[in-house]
C-alpha cells in the first residue's frame, strides 16, 4: 500500500516536474523568440538608421575679383565647420590667414549627382579682393571654386538625433582599435557577454556595495542603446545579456561593430544628440571619419565613456588627458609605435567653432518644410536622410536676422512714446530678400522670435500694401500700351483734393501731411508719396488697367477697380509684394520666387528639382521710367533717411504706410537684389510708425551689411531717351529756360513743343527784333 502510494506520489511528482519543465521550455522558447524578434526588428531598423533630412543653403562661389568685404568669410568658414589653424593648414577642414591671403583645405561634399573631393586652395588677397585662386595640390590656377552649402537645419523626428552613417571600411583602423581597447577589450573573444568582464565588474560592485561598473560588452552597450534603458536593474541586465547573445549568434562581429559605431551617443549639437562616430568627427574636428588623425581618433574613442565630461569644447586639458591615457594604453598593447605615440600626443586639439544654434533660419526652414511636406511624409523626412538644397545665402540671412531684431529694439527704445502703451504682443517685423534675375530667396525673416511666435509674416500674413503699391500705379501710367493717356515722370498731375463716387459712397483721398500741393510732376508725387495725386493718376490711367497690372505682377487677392486701389487699399502677402518688385531690376520680367533648388536622396540621386521660372509681364521702357523715379525716393524723397544712415549704393525703392499707421513697409532694390521689410502688430493695432521711420532703417542696415555700396546702375533699355526739358513747363527746353533737366521718355512720347513759359526768339525776331 505504502509502496504503491509512494510510487504514485513519485509519478505525480514526475508529472508535475515534466509539466513544469515543459511549461518552462515552452515559455523560454517563446521568450527567446520574442527577444530575437524584437532585437532583430530593431537591428534591422538600425541598418536603415533614422537619418534626419537636412536643409542646406546655397553654395558660395569664390572667383578672382570678388570682393570679400561683405562676405564675412571667416564667419562663413567657421559655420561650415572649418578649423582656424592660425598660420598653416595641415589637412582637410583647415583654414589659415597667411600674410598674402587665405588658405583653405576644402571639405569633400556630395552635391546632388556630383561628388566633390576637397583639395587645398590658396586665395591671394589684395585688401579684400581675391586676386588669384590656386589649387595647392596641383599648382593649377582656378577660375572659380565653390564653398560647399551650409547645413541650415536638420529635419528631425521627435528624437532629435543627428548622424552621418559610416561603413566599417571608412573608419580608420586606429579608431576601431581604440574603441575596442577602451570599451570592450575582449570583443573578438566573447559571444555577446563577457563572463570575465562581468566578474571583474562584480568584484568592484561588491566592494562598493552598489552597481558602479557594468562589465558591458560593445554588444550589450548596443542593445542598451537600442532600447534606451538607463536603469541598472538585474532583470534588465539579464535581458540585455540575452539579447546580446542572440545578436552575436545571428550577426557577425563586423556587423555589430558597424552598428555600434553608428549608434553610440557622442555629444550634443545644440538640442540635438550627435549619434555615431561619423557625425562626431564632424562635430569635434570638422572632418570626415576617414580623415581623422591618430590623436583625434583616440580622443573620439575616449569620449564614449562620457561625452559631456571629456568634450574638447568644454575642457581641453581634460580631453587631452583622456586622449593621452588612451594613446598610452594603445602603445602598451603595441597597437601603435613609440613614434606614433609621440606624434599623436603632440597634436594640438583644434576644434571648429561650436555651433550654438541648430536651426539657423527657422522661418525659412518652416517655409521649406511646408513645401516638402506635400511631397514626402513626415516619416520619410525624419528618417531617410534626404538632402534639401535651397537658395538661402546664410551671410544674407544672418545680416537679415540681426537687422530685424536690432531694428525692432531700436524702434521700441527710440519711439516708445509713439507706440501704444502696454500692448500685449510685441512689435513684429519681417524681411525677405530675393535675387531678381533668378527668383532665389536669399534671406527670409518671418517674424521677431521664432521661439515665441512661429507665424511667418512673410508668407502667411495678408496686410494692406499701402503706398508700397504706388509704383505699380505709376508703372501702368508710364506704359503707353496700358495707360488710357500717355504719362512720363515729367508729366503733371493735380494734387488737389477731389471727391469720387466709388462703391456707392463718396471717396476723397488725403495726403499724409494733410496738405494739398497743387500741380506737381509725377516724379515729385511718387518721391513724396502724395495720395491725392496718385489716386487722380490712377483714374486718368484707367482703374481697370491698374487691376490688370496688379494681376500681372502676381497679386492674388480680390481686387476692385476703385480709386483706392492705387493707394494699396487691398491685402497682399509680403512675399507677393517682394516678387512683384522683381520686375523693376529685371527690366519687366517677373521671376517666380523659389526657395528649394533640388532634393537628393542620401545616395545623391536627384529626386526633385525646381528651376528658374520667369516671364516678361511689362515692357522694359515703362519699368525703367518707374525705377528712375524710385531712385529719387531714396535720394530725395520719403526714403532719404537711407542715405543719411550711410547707405551709398545705387538703389531705388518705396516706403509704405497704411491708413492709420498700422503697417510700415519698405520695398527697395539694387540691380541685383530686391529686399522688402515690414513692421506692424499681429492684431493690426496702430503703431504710429511710417514706413520710413520703422521699416526703412531695417532695410538700410541689411543692405549696408549685405549689398554694400555697389555702384552698378540700372540698365536703360534702347527705347528710352533722355530729353532736355524745362521742369516748370514739362516742354522742350529753350535757350531762355533758366532751369533745365534731362528727363527720361519712351521714344516717341517725348514733348515736341518748345517751352511756353520761356519761348526762344525765332530767327526773324532775332534779326529784326520786335
Amino acid at each position, binding site marked *: 500500500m505504502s509502496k504503491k502510494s509512494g510510487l504514485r506520489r513519485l509519478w505525480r511528482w514526475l508529472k508535475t516536474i515534466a509539466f513544469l519543465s515543459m511549461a518552462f521550455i515552452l515559455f523560454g522558447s517563446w521568450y527567446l523568440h520574442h527577444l530575437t524578434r524584437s532585437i532583430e526588428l530593431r537591428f534591422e531598423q538600425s541598418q536603415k538608421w533614422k537619418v534626419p533630412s537636412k536643409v542646406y543653403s546655397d553654395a558660395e*562661389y569664390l*572667383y578672382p575679383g570678388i570682393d570679400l568685404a561683405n562676405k564675412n568669410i571667416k564667419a562663413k568658414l567657421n559655420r561650415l565647420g572649418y578649423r582656424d589653424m592660425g598660420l598653416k593648414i595641415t589637412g582637410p577642414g583647415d583654414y589659415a590667414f597667411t600674410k598674402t591671403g587665405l588658405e583653405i583645405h576644402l571639405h569633400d561634399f556630395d552635391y546632388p*549627382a556630383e561628388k566633390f573631393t576637397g583639395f587645398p586652395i590658396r586665395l591671394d588677397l589684395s585688401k579684400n579682393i581675391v586676386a588669384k585662386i590656386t589649387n595647392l595640390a596641383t599648382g593649377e590656377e582656378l577660375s572659380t571654386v565653390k564653398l560647399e552649402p551650409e547645413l541650415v537645419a536638420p529635419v528631425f523626428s521627435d528624437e532629435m538625433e543627428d548622424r552621418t552613417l559610416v561603413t566599417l571600411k571608412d573608419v580608420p583602423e586606429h579608431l576601431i582599435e581604440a574603441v575596442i581597447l577602451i570599451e570592450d577589450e575582449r570583443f573578438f573573444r566573447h559571444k555577446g557577454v563577457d563572463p570575465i568582464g562581468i566578474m571583474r565588474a562584480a568584484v568592484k560592485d561588491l566592494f562598493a556595495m552598489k552597481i558602479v561598473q557594468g562589465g558591458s560588452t560593445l554588444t550589450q552597450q548596443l542593445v542598451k542603446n537600442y532600447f534606451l534603458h538607463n536603469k541598472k536593474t538585474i532583470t534588465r541586465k539579464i535581458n540585455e545579456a540575452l539579447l546580446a547573445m542572440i545578436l552575436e549568434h545571428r550577426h557577425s562581429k563586423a556587423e555589430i561593430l558597424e552598428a555600434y559605431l553608428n549608434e553610440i551617443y557622442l555629444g550634443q549639437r545644440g538640442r540635438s544628440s550627435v549619434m555615431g562616430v561619423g557625425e562626431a568627427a564632424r562635430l569635434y574636428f570638422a572632418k570626415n571619419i576617414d580623415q581623422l588623425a591618430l590623436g583625434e581618433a583616440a580622443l573620439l574613442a575616449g569620449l564614449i565613456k562620457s561625452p559631456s565630461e571629456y568634450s574638447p569644447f568644454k575642457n581641453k586639458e581634460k580631453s587631452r588627458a583622456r586622449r593621452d591615457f588612451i594613446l598610452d594604453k594603445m602603445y602598451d598593447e603595441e597597437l601603435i609605435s613609440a613614434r606614433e605615440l609621440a606624434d599623436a600626443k603632440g597634436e594640438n586639439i583644434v576644434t571648429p567653432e561650436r555651433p550654438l544654434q541648430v536651426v539657423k533660419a527657422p522661418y525659412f526652414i518652416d517655409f521649406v518644410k511646408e513645401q516638402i511636406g506635400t511631397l514626402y511624409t513626415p516619416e520619410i523626412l525624419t528618417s531617410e536622410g534626404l538632402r534639401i538644397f535651397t537658395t538661402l545665402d546664410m551671410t544674407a540671412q544672418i545680416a537679415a536676422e540681426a537687422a530685424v531684431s536690432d531694428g525692432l529694439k531700436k524702434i521700441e527704445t527710440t519711439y516708445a512714446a509713439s507706440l501704444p502703451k502696454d500692448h500685449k504682443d510685441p512689435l513684429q517685423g519681417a524681411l525677405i530678400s530675393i535675387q531678381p*534675375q533668378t527668383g532665389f530667396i536669399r534671406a527670409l525673416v518671418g517674424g521677431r522670435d521664432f521661439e515665441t511666435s512661429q507665424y511667418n509674416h512673410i508668407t502667411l500674413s495678408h496686410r494692406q500694401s499701402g503706398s508700397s503699391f504706388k509704383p505699380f500705379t505709376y508703372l501702368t501710367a508710364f506704359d503707353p500700351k496700358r495707360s488710357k493717356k500717355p504719362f512720363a515722370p515729367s508729366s503733371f498731375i493735380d494734387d488737389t483734393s477731389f471727391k469720387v463716387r466709388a462703391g456707392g459712397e463718396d471717396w476723397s483721398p488725403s495726403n499724409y501731411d494733410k496738405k494739398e500741393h497743387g500741380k506737381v510732376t509725377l516724379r515729385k508725387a511718387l518721391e513724396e508719396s502724395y495720395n491725392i495725386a496718385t489716386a487722380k493718376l490712377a483714374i486718368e490711367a484707367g482703374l481697370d488697367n491698374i487691376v490688370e497690372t496688379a494681376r500681372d505682377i502676381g497679386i492674388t487677392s480680390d481686387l476692385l477697380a476703385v480709386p483706392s486701389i492705387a493707394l494699396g487699399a487691398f491685402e497682399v502677402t509680403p512675399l507677393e509684394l517682394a516678387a512683384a518688385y522683381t520686375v523693376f531690376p529685371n527690366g519687366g520680367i517677373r521671376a517666380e520666387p523659389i526657395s528649394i533648388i533640388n532634393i537628393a536622396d542620401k545616395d545623391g540621386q536627384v529626386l526633385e528639382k525646381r*528651376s528658374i521660372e520667369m516671364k516678361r509681364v511689362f515692357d522694359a521702357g515703362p519699368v525703367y521710367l518707374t525705377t528712375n523715379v524710385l531712385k529719387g525716393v531714396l535720394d530725395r524723397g520719403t526714403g532719404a533717411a537711407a542715405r543719411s544712415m550711410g547707405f551709398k549704393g545705387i538703389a531705388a525703392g518705396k516706403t509704405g504706410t497704411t491708413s492709420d499707421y498700422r503697417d510700415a513697409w519698405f520695398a527697395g532694390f539694387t540691380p541685383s537684389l530686391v529686399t522688402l521689410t515690414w513692421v506692424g502688430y499681429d492684431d493690426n493695432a496702430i503703431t504710429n510708425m511710417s514706413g520710413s521711420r520703422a521699416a526703412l532703417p531695417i532695410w538700410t542696415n541689411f543692405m549696408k551689411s549685405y549689398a554694400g555700396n555697389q555702384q552698378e546702375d540700372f540698365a536703360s533699355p534702347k527705347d528710352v531717351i533722355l530729353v532736355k526739358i524745362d521742369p516748370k513747363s514739362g516742354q522742350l527746353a529753350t535757350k531762355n529756360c533758366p532751369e533745365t533737366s534731362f528727363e527720361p521718355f519712351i521714344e516717341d512720347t517725348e514733348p*515736341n513743343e*518748345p517751352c511756353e513759359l520761356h519761348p526762344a526768339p525765332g530767327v526773324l525776331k532775332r534779326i529784326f527784333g520786335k
Partner: protein
Amino acid sequence: MRTSSRAGSVEKNFWKIACATTCVLLFFSSCMMGAMHKRSTHKKPAPAKVEHERAPETGARKEIIRTESKPITLAATPKAKASSTLLEDGRREFAQENFEAAERSFQEAINIDPANGIAYYYLAKTKYAQGQFEQASGVLDKAEELLAGSKEWMEAISILREMISHAAN
C-alpha cells in the same frame, strides 16, 4: 660779303627757327595737355552724347541723349569671367545631351553673374530640349533683354523662339 650774308641769313632764319620751335613746343604741350586731360577724366564715365534734333511739326530745338547699346563683351568683369567658365561647362554637357548637368551649370552661371545673357539663352535652349516650353520662353525673354545689343544673338533668339512656339503648338 660772305660773312655779312651769313650774318644776314642767321637774322633772316631766326624767325623761321623761332616759329618752328614754337610750333614744336605748342604741338608737344597740346599733346601733353591732351594726355593729362585724358588721364584726369580716365575714371569718369564718358560724357553722354547729346544729339541736337528738330522736333517734328513744331521744328523746335530738341536735345536728346540716346541709350547706347552696350556691346556684348564676354567676361568683362571678374564675375562674368567666372560665370563664363561655368557656361562653357554647361555647353559641353549640352553637346553631350546631358541636359540635367547642363541646366545645373547654366543656372550656376546665372547665379554668379545674373547679367550673363548667353547663360539665359542656353538655359532656355536646355529647357526647350527637355520639353519645358513655357519655362523656356520665359527664360528666353531675359536672354533677349540682356543680349539686345547683338544682332547675331538676337537672330539666334528669334530662331529659338520660333522653335519653341512651333513645338508648343
